[in-house]
């Protein structure tokens, strides 16, 4: 790129202005004439047969227009297709059919003139259930004789596979030391403040569905919607509003189908917005699970091999299981040079909320296990935990480095990240500080964790778990158009959900076309009729750097070339003599010889006969971009599951109140490297926010089910999100190791902080309680858990 005036600028996102004045166009703020409101009656049992449903009384309430049951949904729609094929077909509809399999599963939906009345209708619906035994623990669900969620399947194990890379058995048998430990991860989720919703307007005469939603993956949702409703994609217009936070959670095709069916039945637009209780109970939970991790270590402390047996509890997720497992597989060696990997993974169903995408998706657990393990290994070998890590980091000279599983770490200086981190947290002086504090009866601890933070999912990786090639690669699409007045319009498939895409995209285009930032407008909304899109279109896996940039730049380049060509024609010069700068195409030698973009647009749109003979009118460029780095799994089952790997180091100093078990974060340092920084303000904000999610997972958030499968915390009163008091100020520093594979050298940022944070905090707490010999096992580290760990350690000694 010739101009780089806007790249790297600390521009505050222009989107902020409309949000700070309360003018966000979020989905709940849209309203249409005659619009109805839907409410869903949900299962109160974790597992039961549906004996009968009676909606007669509900339909009598004035203002209630129609109701929909699972039987009707089955008659009116095709089953939603699962990601991985199952030996027996499992029909899954937008409402429960024949059985309910988790508390909160949708059973009946009603549409009424207001949400108030719709909920009144729910009160009058009679559902008769025959409760069945439920299974809540994933290991119990795997045992023969466990209650089966789908009897025809004969098992609750949706997926089980083994991956072997390198001579795993040999490495383990020869290793000087083998360490093994069991780790647990709990259920939590990012809970965007705006809940998921949609408005479906089905025109029966036209057989056309218009859908407004805050779904963050339009590219994936549209085909699912089309298939379920028996429509072609041309019969659907899919529009997104401002999305009030996504973090992976804002996807639920069954709700889209549900609203569409209600609209079809009623002949009116139907809005469905989940309330917070529905959201916490039934939208999506990150998988909980158990991991047995073994690490083979050489005499000199070299990490030689890793063996994992991982059980992911997916709840009732028949639609897209194994995602967490694949991402754990891709991250299994983290920042370290480890030559042999064995990974055995299970995806298991239980009678709980379906799993799904959440900030980090499986990678926080993988990082937690490995980084905790490294501290343990250091302790048991009598080695320094920093030096043990340093010794095993992938050195910068080996970049780009391919891990045993086929993941490509494109760039990064891990030793430097570590050094900066140690300086930032004050590692050298901490030992003294800790001793002094202990003498005063205060228990301080310092913990750290390093993490790779890959981005941009490669659809090919699902071939490993699904056994079929439904999709592959990674891509995004964008359109750039110079309008007839010389202003520049940008439409990007991935509109984001708070990551400042409208600003970042404008910076890229402004640089590419040599115009001012203010001259570029980026549409905040996805509209399937307007936005170019692919199956991979959407906001997920931090793919802005990996695919969106390429699409935006590609589109801008096409327009840029056309501008140069047109100007060359009008100025009777050759395109090589010209450049794009200051809103014009001008001669490199004499800047006064120029044509402004407005003048060029005038010709391109109006004065058509002034165009060169072979040139089309208009000034529009479209780019459907795919990341060249994406590959297919090879015969050894290696694949680049995610591309463009950022990395970070987190370190924290905590204080543990041993009388109460409370953990307080005193200091938190973050060093991150996401390659070239397009906009430091945006990047820093995302780093803060993602880390806060990790803190929530480490100390506060947990979805709890009792033994019968009843969810115990379904409101914000008892599902605890960290507030401004619990989240500390962050000290941040960064490196820039540009990726050789992305157009600007950018790598993903957005989810990163959520990956190492739980590990750093857990390590810090154990460090604080080291003299007591405390070993922690479960997260979150609630005061009670910490106290019990201290209590039982005291008893042992």
């Amino acid at each position, binding site marked *: 790129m010739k101009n780089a005036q806007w790249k790297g600028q600390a521009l505050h996102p222009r989107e902020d202005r409309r949000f700070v004045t309360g003018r966000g166009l979020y989905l709940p703020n849209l309203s249409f004439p005659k619009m109805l409101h839907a409410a869903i009656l949900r299962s109160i049992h974790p597992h039961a047969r549906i004996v009968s449903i009676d909606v007669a009384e509900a339909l009598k309430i004035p203002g209630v227009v129609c109701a929909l049951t699972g039987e009707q949904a089955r008659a009116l729609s095709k089953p939603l297709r699962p990601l991985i094929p199952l030996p027996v077909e499992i029909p899954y509809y937008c409402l429960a059919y024949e059985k309910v399999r988790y508390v909160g599963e949708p059973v009946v939906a009603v549409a009424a003139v207001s949400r108030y009345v719709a909920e009144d209708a729910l*009160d009058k619906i009679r559902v008769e259930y025959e409760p069945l035994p439920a299974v809540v623990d994933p290991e119990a669900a795997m045992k023969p004789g466990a209650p089966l969620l789908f009897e025809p399947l004969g098992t609750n194990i949706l997926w089980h596979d083994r991956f072997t890379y390198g001579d795993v058995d040999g490495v383990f048998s020869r290793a000087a030391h083998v360490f093994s430990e069991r780790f647990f991860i709990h259920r939590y989720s990012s809970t965007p403040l705006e809940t998921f919703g949609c408005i479906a307007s089905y025109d029966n005469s036209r057989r056309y569905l218009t859908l407004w939603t805050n779904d963050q993956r339009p590219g994936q949702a549209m085909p699912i919607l089309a298939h379920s409703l028996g429509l072609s994609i041309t019969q659907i217009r899919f529009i997104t509003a401002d999305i009030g936070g996504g973090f992976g959670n804002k996807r639920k095709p069954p709700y889209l189908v549900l609203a569409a069916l209600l609209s079809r039945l009623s002949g009116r637009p139907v809005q469905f917005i989940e309330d917070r*209780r529905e959201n916490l109970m039934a939208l999506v939970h990150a998988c909980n699970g158990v991991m047995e991790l073994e690490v083979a270590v050489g005499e000199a402390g070299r990490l030689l091999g890793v063996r994992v047996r991982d059980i992911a509890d997916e709840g009732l997720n028949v639609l897209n299981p194994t995602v967490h497992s694949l991402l754990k597989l891709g991250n299994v060696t983290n920042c370290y040079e480890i030559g042999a990997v064995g990974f055995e993974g299970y995806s298991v169903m239980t009678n709980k909320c379906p799993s799904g995408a959440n900030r980090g998706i499986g990678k926080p657990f993988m990082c937690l296990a490995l980084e905790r393990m490294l501290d343990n290994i250091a302790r048991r070998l009598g080695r320094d935990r920093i030096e043990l890590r340093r010794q095993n980091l992938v050195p910068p000279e080996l970049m780009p480095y391919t891990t045993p599983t086929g993941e490509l770490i494109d760039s990064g200086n891990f030793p430097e990240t570590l050094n900066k981190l140690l300086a930032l947290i004050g590692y050298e002086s901490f030992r003294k500080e800790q001793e002094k504090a202990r003498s005063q009866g205060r228990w301080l601890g310092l913990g750290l964790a390093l993490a790779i933070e890959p981005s941009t999912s490669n659809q090919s990786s699902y071939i490993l778990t699904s056994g079929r090639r439904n999709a592959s690669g990674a891509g995004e699409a964008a359109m750039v158009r110079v309008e007839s007045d010389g202003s520049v319009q940008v439409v990007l498939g991935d509109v984001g959900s708070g990551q400042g895409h409208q600003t970042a995209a404008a910076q890229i285009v402004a640089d590419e076309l040599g115009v001012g930032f203010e001259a570029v407008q980026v549409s905040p909304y996805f509209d399937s009729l307007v936005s170019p899109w692919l199956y991979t279109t959407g906001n997920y896996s931090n793919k802005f750097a990996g695919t969106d940039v390429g699409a935006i730049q590609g589109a801008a380049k096409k327009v840029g070339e056309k501008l140069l060509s047109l100007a060359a024609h009008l100025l009777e010069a050759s395109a090589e003599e010209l450049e794009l700068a200051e809103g014009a195409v001008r001669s490199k030698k004499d800047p006064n010889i120029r044509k402004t973009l407005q003048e060029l647009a005038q010709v391109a749109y109006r004065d058509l006969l002034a165009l060169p003979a072979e040139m089309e009118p208009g000034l529009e460029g479209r780019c459907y971009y795919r990341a060249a780095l994406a590959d297919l799994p090879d015969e050894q089952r290696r694949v680049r599951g995610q591309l463009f790997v950022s990395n970070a180091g987190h370190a924290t100093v905590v204080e543990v109140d041993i009388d109460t078990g409370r953990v307080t974060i005193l200091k938190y340092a973050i060093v991150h490297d996401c390659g070239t920084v397009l906009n430091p303000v945006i990047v820093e904000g995302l780093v803060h926010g993602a880390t806060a999610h990790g803190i929530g997972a480490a100390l506060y958030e947990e979805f709890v089910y009792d033994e019968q499968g009843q969810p115990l915390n379904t409101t914000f009163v008892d599902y605890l999100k960290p507030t401004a008091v619990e989240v500390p100020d962050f000290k941040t520093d960064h490196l820039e190791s540009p990726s050789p594979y992305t157009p600007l050298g950018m790598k993903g940022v957005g989810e990163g902080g959520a990956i190492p944070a739980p590990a750093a905090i857990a390590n810090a707490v154990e460090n604080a309680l080291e003299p007591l010999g405390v070993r922690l096992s479960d997260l979150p580290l609630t005061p*009670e858990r910490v*106290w*019990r760990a201290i209590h039982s350690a005291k008893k042992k000694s």
Partner: protein
Amino acid sequence: MKPAPFHYYRARSLQEALDLLSGPAANGKLLAGGQSLIPLMNLRLARPEALIDLNNIPGLSSIRSAGAEIRIGALTRHREMEFSALLAKELPLLAEAIPQIGHPAIRNRGTLGGSLAHADPAAELPCVLTALDARMVATAPDGERVIRAEDFFTGFYATALADNEILKEVRIPLDRRPAGWGFVEFARRHGDFALAEASVLLFADDAGDRCTSARVVVGGSVERPVRVGGVEKLIQGEISLNTQASSLAHVLQRVEQLTETEIQSSIAGGENPDYLCHLTGVLARRALESAMERWRKA
């Protein structure tokens, strides 16, 4: 998440409210701040047939001194109490606890009477007012009566108020000024309900250096505020301004252990009440430490 339908009555006087409670709104609930009630109604966990809105009744919101007591109207908002110079001066224990009630937005609406009538064991005011030996003035169609705090909170979200009774005023005696006071609460996050809490008041002799009596009340982990009599006796016998550091440390440890023992039968915890029991003991100790600190400073 919308409430079920109900009949709404706006009471213009206490008498009107009483009439409604005995008559057309007999199955209704009183609406004061609504900060506990309306969330429950939005969740449809509470579905009262009627709401009697007390917020427009004049004269129920005030903080004043009347002889040897402070009188606070039942409809006084937490925020008013929070910024009351009178309370800060006369009832510093109360002044210490109020800012820990929820968040500013909650305190802007929540009322003293509402909080007490709701009797959430994890709330701050029931514990503190029991420590302060407050008297609740309740009014019914057949007259008024005064209920001491210790008799007012009867159990889990339960009070001694009859169905047709309305809390009108709270009176807190000032006849004895504490030499030291402390309120300590343990919540998961800032502003959350208390997992456990403790209020301690130390009263000294005329010379001001021997502790003649104490009031120790714990809450949060128990169904209703519990006066820990054994601990009160222990403190009374053992603490003075001149107590040596090592002796004091010993007393504090015994306070913690004795609190744990004394409340064990009252703990509201589920399967593993030992943590809450222990926590309550720790807080009793810390509240006492805080009270001692204040005593020394004065």
